[in-house]
């Protein structure tokens, strides 16, 4: 893949940083996750797209 292709690509280039591995398995946004679980439990899932 050349520079032109890279710039067109929607997929970003992501550098792996070992320092971020300390977050694996930890919930950094606990309150948000709790809210998400509550909404998904009460509202459920969307109906599939008609198109």
């Amino acid at each position, binding site marked *: 893949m050349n520079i032109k292709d890279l710039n067109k690509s929607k997929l970003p280039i*992501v550098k792996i*940083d070992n320092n971020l*591995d300390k977050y*694996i398995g930890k919930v*950094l*946004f606990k309150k*948000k996750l709790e809210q*998400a679980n509550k909404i*998904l439990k009460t509202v459920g899932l*969307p109906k599939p797209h008609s198109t």
Partner: protein
Amino acid sequence: MKLPKYKLSADHSLTVYEFVSEGPKGKIIKIVQYSETNLKDFFNLGFGDKDIVTGAINDTVITNNDDSQKVLATVAATVYAFTNKNPNSWIYATGSTKSRTRLYRMGITNNLIEIMQDFEVYGLRDDQWEEFKIKVEYEAFLIKRK
């Protein structure tokens, strides 16, 4: 989104992403995390600032670093990266404040044609999910790779 973005770093599992916002307030570390919910393949998108000294993460702080579009485009880029690795995943996203949720909605609206090429997008309104429509206020969003 073909908008300027910040360079991204991630952990090996590609669930935690970090980038540095640069603006009048200086350099601010931003962190994005995808956490699995109680529903299999449903992930919450968490997003906030990381204190450079303490490492504490805050998702309610208002940074005002004059780069909200670039920050939003970078967060959107993490959605591409995450769903590329987890193509069957659903992403749940909402702002920590009403104004931040509105910012997400504007970000989706402004790039809807492009987003719809790759994702199904739903908005939560009156305790129901509906296909995302512009000019409608939503409480949360669900996104899935097509």
